[in-house]
């Protein structure tokens, strides 16, 4: 720091020590540039990560699609890449992921939104001080714990209620994934509700509306873009969930709407294949990347969609 002070002060005076001081400030300039370069390189790492993901996925998928037509992959309804005769229709895996995601949404979206409304509009400070940390804890619990909970607690309960439920089933995983994403919906929706300016609420009260009417007819519609965006993000998270479905949902790819059967999701398939560890170069190895590419594309599209919804449909207040 003092070096900078004296150098600058000296340079402004001019005189015999000028060349040395000029050299010092040139050294400073180079150091600044060097540091800036290093920091830019750090920023580049994040780009490299994306490039890496996309390259790796596409590279191996090219090998896969050389042997299997994309049409068969995307529209086939039988997935038996390891058995003979081989079928590479990925729809059963997608159906499995969708079934779990829909079930999770049924749990998480209403509960999450209602929690957000309570926290943003109704909760007294004391309650909020307790409830918000609770939600944060819920969000921080590792997914393998949820998987364990599904396997040992939820599945037996479901089997009491619906006797024909298989020991591996989609419903158990759905419920647990739903619990997992409640905090996400709640906190993002709450942010959206908070962002609605006070004067809208006050205007509504001024017209004689009750709190209930204000919340449901003014605040929530105003925050709708943020709420919908949070829904989309949460569903995307549910699709990408791995450990809970691997433990509880099963490993039988099939197209079914019945949540009480076992299914297999895209994520659980990737885990299954890598547990069995197929080697380089075989078509089974490449299925990891083809399914991974599909998964990546779906979640990326949903994340982008949620941001578009947030920006495009956000109500603008002056």
């Amino acid at each position, binding site marked *: 720091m003092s070096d900078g002070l004296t150098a600058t002060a000296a340079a402004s005076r001019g005189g015999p020590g000028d060349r040395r001081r000029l050299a010092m400030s040139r050294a400073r300039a180079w150091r600044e540039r060097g540091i800036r370069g290093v920091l830019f390189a750090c920023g580049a790492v994040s780009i490299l990560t994306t490039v890496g993901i996309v390259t790796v996925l596409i590279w191996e998928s090219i090998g896969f699609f050389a042997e299997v037509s994309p049409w068969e992959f995307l529209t086939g309804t039988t997935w038996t890449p390891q*058995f*003979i005769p081989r079928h590479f229709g990925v729809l059963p895996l997608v159906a499995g992921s969708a079934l779990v995601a829909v079930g999770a949404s049924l749990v998480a979206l209403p509960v999450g939104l209602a929690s957000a409304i309570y926290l943003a509009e109704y909760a007294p400070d004391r309650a909020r001080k307790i409830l918000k940390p609770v939600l944060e804890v819920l969000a921080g619990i590792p997914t393998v714990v949820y998987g364990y909970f599904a396997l040992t607690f939820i599945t037996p309960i479901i089997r009491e209620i619906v006797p024909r439920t*298989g020991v591996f089933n989609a419903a158990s995983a759905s419920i647990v994934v739903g619990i997992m994403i409640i905090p996400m919906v709640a906190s993002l929706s709450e942010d959206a509700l908070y962002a609605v300016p006070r004067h809208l609420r006050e205007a509504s009260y001024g017209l004689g509306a009750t709190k209930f009417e204000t919340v449901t007819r003014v605040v929530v519609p105003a925050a709708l873009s943020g709420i919908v965006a949070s829904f989309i993000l949460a569903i995307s998270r549910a699709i990408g969930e791995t450990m809970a479905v691997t433990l509880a949902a099963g490993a*039988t790819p099939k197209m079914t709407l019945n949540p009480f059967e076992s299914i297999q999701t895209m994520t659980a398939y990737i885990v299954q294949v890598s*547990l069995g*560890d197929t080697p380089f170069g075989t078509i089974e190895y490449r299925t990891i990347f083809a399914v991974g590419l599909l998964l990546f594309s779906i979640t990326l599209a949903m994340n982008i969609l949620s941001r578009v919804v947030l920006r495009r449909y956000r109500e603008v207040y002056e």
Partner: protein
Amino acid sequence: MAPSIRLPVVFPLLAWLAGCGGGGSEAEVAGRVHIDGSSTVYPITEAIVEEFQAAHASIRVAVGVSGTGGGFKKFCIGEAEVADASRGIKASELERCRANGVDPLEFPIALDGLSVMVNPANDWADCLTVEELRRIWEPGSAITSWSQVRDGWPDEELVLYGPGIDSGSFDYFTETVVGQEDASRADYMASEDDNVLVHGVSGDRGSLGYFGHAYYVEHKDVLKLLAIDDGAGCVLPDSQSVRTGAYRPLTRPLFVYVDRLALERAEVVRFMRYYFTNVCRLASEVGYVPLPAGQYEAALNAIE
């Protein structure tokens, strides 16, 4: 036919007595050993490694369960020094190994009666013929209910569990029961992890699964064992019937394969010595049938 001694006929003839040897001197050696392969052999390997590691902390042994096929794939590229296998090495795998400079030595270590299991609540089935098993498991099989297996059996949904395609048990079962290797129906829950299969079979009333006998022994209280009829009457797998070969056709030898080049490392030799000295005792402890003592002595000599 693969260049291996996996003839289910030869072994029962040789297995007339099981005795266990012991002994060995110790000096400090350090290093790493990687084992991977069959989930059927895994209980034996796990037991041995657990005891070995406690006695030899400087030799670190890591055990994976990728299935017999998966284990060979790692073994043949040198990522694993030892492969667990519930079937003999195939010609194609042998070629790949040789091409990568890996020279496999085959050691049989125990006998397994590959067992067919159903749910304990299943009170109608005690015995299946090989023919019925084949009809259930052949590719394209449309059997989804127990009533389709045998007349008079209830219309209970048949839920199937079995090893995946990387498993030696899968290869062995398909070859001996269905008649052609790797030929199987595809709509069952496949897993390389036999624990998952046990969980499944013990959960659904109409379930049926096949896996190594050790997993039955470990979970006797939640599984029911089926006898198999190969034309000479119903035979349950137990140490007697497996040893004499009466449990047909599903009695098979279990192997470990070691890379000869890896045996130049002291830690590998130390580990394999411990293995062959103790496998007799531990194999029967986990539920398999050990071989006669002579086999293990021959193995010990071979690795020195």
